[in-house]
C-alpha cells in the first residue's frame, strides 16, 4: 500500500472492493439457533442494510463475517477467501472493517491513537525500529498520520484529536469508532447500529458521513439499524432477518411492503406511520 | 539498634544481622538475645582490653537482599567483624566479606563455607558442620544398631530434609559415609506449606525405614515426629534430628511423641549443667529471663559471639591494629578455646575454619535432652 506524500487517499487509493457472498450460513450456541441457512450477497459499492427484531441474529451474522464467530455450516466468501476459516485479525488485510453495537473503543487512548491503531495493519516496521523511533519508525508514523488526518477531516472531529475517548460524549464516541474503522482504508465496512441512542440531529450527521464514505471513498457498507427512516433513506438494498432466517431481501420499497416483514419487525402502526 | 555502654576506650564496632521477624525468627530471636547478651556482659565487665563493643545490628527478616544492604551500611559505619545468620545471606556475602576483609561468623554450618584457601577466607564456623553432625549421627546409630546384633546391610536410613540447599547440604557426605558402611539411604524432601507428612512417611515406610534423620528446623520436624507416632512408625525406628531441630522447641511442640528422639547437638542444651551455662544464665536472671525460655539457641548466640570477641581480644592483646586481617590471623591461632562445655573446645587453623568436628548425641528422656553418648570426635577418628 503506497501513499504518495501529498495525495488524498480517495484519489489515488480507492480501496479494493469485492463482492461478499454469504452462503448457507448456520450458527448455533448450544441449543439456540442464531442463524439458519442464511444466504445473501453484497455487491461492491452498495449500502446493504440488515434489519430484524432483537435477537434475530444480525450481530451474529456480522460476527460471522468478521470471523469472530465460526458458523457450524456454510461459507462466507470475500475476495476468493472463505472467511469462516480465517482469523479475525486477518480480515483488515482483506479490507474489511467494522464498528460495534456497544462502542468498543480503546478508552484510555486518545482519539488520534485510536485512529492510528486503525492503521495498524499498514505499518510494517518491527518492534526494534519502534523502540529506536528516530528514523524509519518515525517516518512511518508521520506517513500514516497523514492518512488519519484525512479521516479526521471527513468526520469533523479535529477539535477532539488529543482527547481521551473514554471521556467523550456518546455521539462523538460513535463517530470516533467509525473513524477508527475508516482509518483501515477498508473496501467493506460493517456498521452495527451506528445510530442507536442518537437524536434526529445526530442521526442526520451520521447519515451524512455514511453517505460520504460510500459515495466519495467508494466503500461498500453493510449496516445494521433499527431506525427505519434511516434504513429506508440511505440503503440500496435491505435484508431482513427473523429468528435467524432471512425472510426478505430487496429494495427498501419492496421490503417495507412485505407482509412478513411488517408482521415480524415493523408492526402495522409503524408501517403506516412511515407512509 | 546499637548496644553498648560508655567505656573508656574507643568502641569496637561489630555488625550483625538477625532474623527476628522472618522465616526463622523462632530460633533467630533467642540467638540474637545471646549475641546481644554477650556484648552487654562484656561491656559491663570492663570491655575488651578496656574497650567497649558497639554492636551495630538489625533484623533482616531472612531476606538476602536486605542482608546485603545492611552489610554495606554497617561496613560503611566501620565495623571490623560481622555476625551473620542464615545460609543464604552467608553465602551471598562471602565474596564481599573476603574483599572487605571482615571476619564473619554465622549460624549456618554448611560445610561449603569452610574454604579458607579459596572462596571463603574470612568465614569461620563455630558450630560443627552439618555434614559432620550427620556423619556423627549416622556413626552413633550404626554403633547402636550393630550393638543390638543387627546387620549394617539391613539398616535403612531416610533423610528428611528441608526443601532447600540448607536441607540438602550435608546429604552427600552422609551418603558417602553410608556407602562406606553398607547402609542404604533415601532422601525425602519436606516441602513448604505442608499440613501433613503422611505421604512422605508412607514412602519411608515402603522403603523399610529403620532410621530417620531430619535436617530441618524444629517446627516442621515436630510435625513429622507427631505424624510418625500416629503412623505407628516411631515405635519401631530411631528418629534423629540435626542441630536446627534438636532443641527445646521440638520437645515443646511434639510433646510425648518426642520421647526417644535423638539429637546431634553442637551446642549443649540448657538442661546440661556445665560451667558454660553459668554466666549466661546469671545475665538472663538480671534481665528477667530464664534459661528454659531462652533455649539453647541463646547460648549458641552467646558463645559464638564469645569466640569472635576472643579473636578481637587476642588482636588487641598482641598490640596489633584492629583490622579484619589481624583479627582473622588471631582467630586462626585459637586453639582449644573453652566454651565451658557448651561445645567441644574450639580450634581454628589457617587451613581449617571449622571450630571443631565433634559433638555429643543427646536423646529426649522425660521431656529433657539427655546425653546419650560420649563426645564423638571425627578429628580423632581420622
Amino acid at each position: 500500500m503506497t501513499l504518495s506524500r501529498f495525495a488524498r487517499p480517495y484519489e489515488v487509493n480507492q480501496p479494493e472492493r469485492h463482492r461478499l457472498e454469504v452462503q448457507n450460513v448456520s450458527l448455533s450456541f448450544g441449543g439456540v439457533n442464531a442463524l439458519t441457512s442464511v444466504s445473501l450477497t453484497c455487491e461492491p459499492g452498495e449500502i446493504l442494510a440488515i434489519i430484524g427484531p432483537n435477537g434475530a441474529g444480525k450481530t451474529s451474522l456480522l460476527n460471522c463475517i468478521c470471523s469472530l464467530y465460526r458458523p457450524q455450516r456454510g461459507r462466507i466468501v470475500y475476495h476468493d477467501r472463505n472467511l469462516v476459516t480465517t482469523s479475525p485479525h486477518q480480515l483488515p488485510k482483506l479490507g474489511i472493517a467494522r464498528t460495534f453495537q456497544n462502542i468498543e473503543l480503546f478508552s484510555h487512548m486518545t482519539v488520534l491513537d485510536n485512529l492510528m491503531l486503525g492503521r495498524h495493519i499498514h505499518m510494517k516496521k518491527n518492534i526494534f525500529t519502534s523502540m529506536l523511533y528516530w528514523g524509519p519508525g518515525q517516518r512511518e508514523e508521520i506517513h500514516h498520520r497523514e492518512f488519519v488526518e484525512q479521516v479526521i477531516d471527513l468526520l469533523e472531529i479535529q477539535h477532539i484529536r488529543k482527547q481521551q475517548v473514554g471521556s467523550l460524549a456518546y455521539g462523538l464516541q460513535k463517530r470516533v469508532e467509525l473513524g477508527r474503522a475508516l482509518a483501515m482504508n477498508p473496501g467493506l465496512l460493517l456498521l452495527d447500529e451506528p445510530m442507536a441512542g442518537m437524536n434526529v440531529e445526530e442521526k442526520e450527521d451520521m447519515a451524512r458521513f455514511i453517505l460520504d464514505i460510500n459515495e466519495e471513498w467508494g466503500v461498500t457498507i453493510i449496516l445494521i439499524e433499527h431506525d427505519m427512516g434511516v434504513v429506508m433513506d440511505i440503503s440500496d438494498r435491505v435484508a431482513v432477518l427473523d429468528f435467524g432466517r432471512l425472510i426478505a431481501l430487496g429494495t427498501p420499497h419492496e421490503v417495507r411492503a412485505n407482509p412478513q416483514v411488517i408482521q415480524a419487525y415493523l408492526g402495522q402502526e409503524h408501517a403506516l406511520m412511515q407512509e | 539498634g546499637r548496644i553498648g555502654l560508655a567505656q573508656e576506650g574507643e568502641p569496637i564496632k561489630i555488625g550483625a544481622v538477625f532474623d527476628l521477624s522472618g522465616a526463622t525468627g523462632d530460633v533467630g530471636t533467642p540467638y540474637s538475645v545471646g549475641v546481644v547478651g554477650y556484648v552487654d556482659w562484656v561491656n559491663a565487665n570492663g570491655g575488651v582490653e578496656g574497650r567497649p563493643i558497639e554492636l551495630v545490628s538489625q533484623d533482616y527478616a531472612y531476606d538476602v537482599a536486605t542482608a546485603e544492604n545492611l552489610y554495606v551500611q554497617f561496613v560503611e559505619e566501620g565495623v571490623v567483624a560481622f555476625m551473620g545468620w542464615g545460609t543464604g545471606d552467608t553465602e551471598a556475602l562471602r565474596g564481599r566479606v573476603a574483599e572487605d576483609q571482615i571476619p564473619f561468623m554465622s549460624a549456618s554450618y554448611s560445610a561449603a563455607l569452610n574454604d579458607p584457601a579459596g572462596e571463603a577466607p574470612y568465614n569461620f564456623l563455630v558450630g560443627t558442620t552439618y555434614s559432620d553432625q550427620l556423619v556423627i549421627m549416622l556413626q552413633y546409630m550404626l554403633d547402636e544398631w550393630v550393638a543390638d546384633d543387627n546387620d549394617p546391610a539391613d539398616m535403612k536410613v531416610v533423610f528428611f530434609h528441608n526443601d532447600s540447599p540448607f536441607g540438602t547440604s550435608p546429604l552427600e557426605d552422609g551418603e558417602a559415609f553410608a556407602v562406606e558402611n553398607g547402609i542404604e539411604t533415601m532422601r525425602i524432601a519436606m516441602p513448604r506449606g505442608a499440613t501433613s507428612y503422611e505421604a512422605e512417611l508412607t514412602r519411608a515406610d515402603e522403603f523399610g525405614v529403620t532410621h530417620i534423620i531430619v535436617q530441618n528446623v524444629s517446627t516442621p520436624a515436630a510435625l513429622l515426629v507427631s505424624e510418625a507416632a500416629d503412623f505407628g512408625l516411631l515405635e519401631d525406628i530411631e528418629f534423629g534430628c540435626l542441630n536446627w531441630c534438636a532443641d527445646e522447641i521440638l520437645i515443646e511442640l511434639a510433646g510425648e511423641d518426642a520421647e526417644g528422639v535423638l539429637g546431634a547437638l553442637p551446642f549443649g542444651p540448657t538442661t546440661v549443667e556445665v560451667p558454660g551455662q553459668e554466666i549466661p544464665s546469671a545475665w538472663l536472671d538480671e534481665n528477667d529471663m530464664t534459661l528454659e525460655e531462652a533455649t539453647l539457641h541463646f547460648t549458641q548466640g552467646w558463645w559464638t559471639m564469645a569466640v569472635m570477641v576472643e579473636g578481637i581480644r587476642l588482636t588487641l592483646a598482641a598490640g596489633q591494629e584492629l583490622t579484619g586481617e589481624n583479627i582473622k590471623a588471631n582467630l586462626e591461632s585459637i586453639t582449644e578455646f573453652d566454651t565451658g562445655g557448651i561445645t567441644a573446645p574450639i580450634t581454628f587453623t589457617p587451613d581449617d575454619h571449622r571450630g571443631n568436628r565433634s559433638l555429643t548425641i543427646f536423646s529426649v528422656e522425660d521431656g529433657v535432652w539427655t546425653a546419650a553418648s560420649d563426645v564423638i570426635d571425627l578429628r580423632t577418628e581420622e
Partner: protein
Amino acid sequence: MTGTEKKSLSLQGLLDHLQTYFAAKTWQWYLTLFGILAVGAYLLNWFVPQAQDNPASFVRYTYNGIAEGAILALVSVGLVLIYKATDVINFAHGEFMMLGAYIAYEMLVEFKVSFLGIDRLGLVPALIAAAVIMGLLGILVERLVLRPLVGEPVISVIMVTIGLSSIIHAGVGLQWGTDAKTWQVRDTALADGVLAQVPELFPQDSEIRRDLETGAYEREIEGSRRPVRFQYDKVYIVLIVSVVILALIFFFKYSKQGIAMRATADDQQASLSMGISVKRIFAITWSIAAMTAGIAGLIVADTGGGAKTDIPGVGLRAFPVIILGGLDSIAGAIVGGLMIGLLEQYAVGYIDPLLQENFASLASASTKNVVPYLVLIVILMFKPYGLFGQKRIERV
C-alpha cells in the same frame, strides 16, 4: 458443503473444538478426570516397585489426599466468596487463617476452654470463638480498608490485601512472636470420655478396628508392614468442611442475601439501583470469608503442628485449587481441593520416586508443589475458566 472446511487446523481451532465438546458434557468431563486420576495413580502404582509391594500405600495416599483436599477446599471457599462478590483475590487470606489459628491457641491454652469437661473438645468452643472473632475482624477490615476502595480498580484492591497481609503478620508477630504455638497434646480423656461412647461405625467382625487410645481406625492390609490408620481427626475435618460448604452453597443459590451478593459481583451500580446496600453485602462477604478462614486456620493448626507463622503458605497452596475449580465456584473449590489434595499425595508417592530413581540429580526433588501447577495449566488450556468457573460473557 464438506465437513473438513469448518475444522480449522490452527491450535486455537482445535482447542475451541475441544472446549465446546467438554462444555456440553460437563459431568462426564469431571467423571473422566477423576477416572483418569484414579487409573493414572493405579498405573503408577504398578510401575513403582515399592508401591506394588505395599498396597496399603495407595489407600493411605488416597484417604490422606481426601483429608488434605477437604482442608484445601475450606481454605479456597473463602477466597472464592470474596472473588464472587468483589472480583478480588484476597492475598491476606492465609494471614486470616493464621490469625484464626492463634485465636484458637489463645482460647485453648491461655483460656483453657474445654467442652463436656474434656480438654480436647475445647476445640468446639475455640472453633466458635475463632469464627466469631474472625467474622468481626472481617467486618472491621472491610469497613476500614476496603470500603474506601469500592468502585476502584480491582488490582488496587488486591494490592491493598497484600498490604493487609503485612499488617496482620506484624500484629501476630507482636502478640505471639514467631515460634509455633501448639495445643497438640495427646489427650487420653478424650478416648475415655467420648470415643468410648461413640458407637462402632463398623460391624464387630469387620476388618476395621478402633484404637480407643488414639481414636484411630485401623485395618490390616495384606503385604503391608503395619496396619493402615485413619486418624479420627481426619474424619472430623471432612465433616466440618462438608457442613460449612453445603451451607454456603445453599446460601448463595437460594437466599436473598446470596442472590444480592452475586448481583453485586455482576454490577455494583445496578445493584445499588435495586436498593441493595453494596456496603452491607461487602461486609457480609468479608465477614463470612474471614470466618471460613478462621475455621480453616484452626483445622490446619490442629492437624499441622500448631499455630505458626508459615500457615499463610497453606493459603498459597489454595491458588491452584481455586483456579482449577473456577474462581467463582464453590462447588469448584471442593472438586479442585480434592483433586489437588490427591495430586499432591500421588506426586509424593509415585512421581517423586520415578524421578529420584531415574535422574541422579533429582535425588532430593519433591514435586508436591509443582505437579498441581502443571496439571492446572494443562486443564486450563481446555477449560480456561477452570472446571466450574463461569465463563465471562463477552459479546460484541
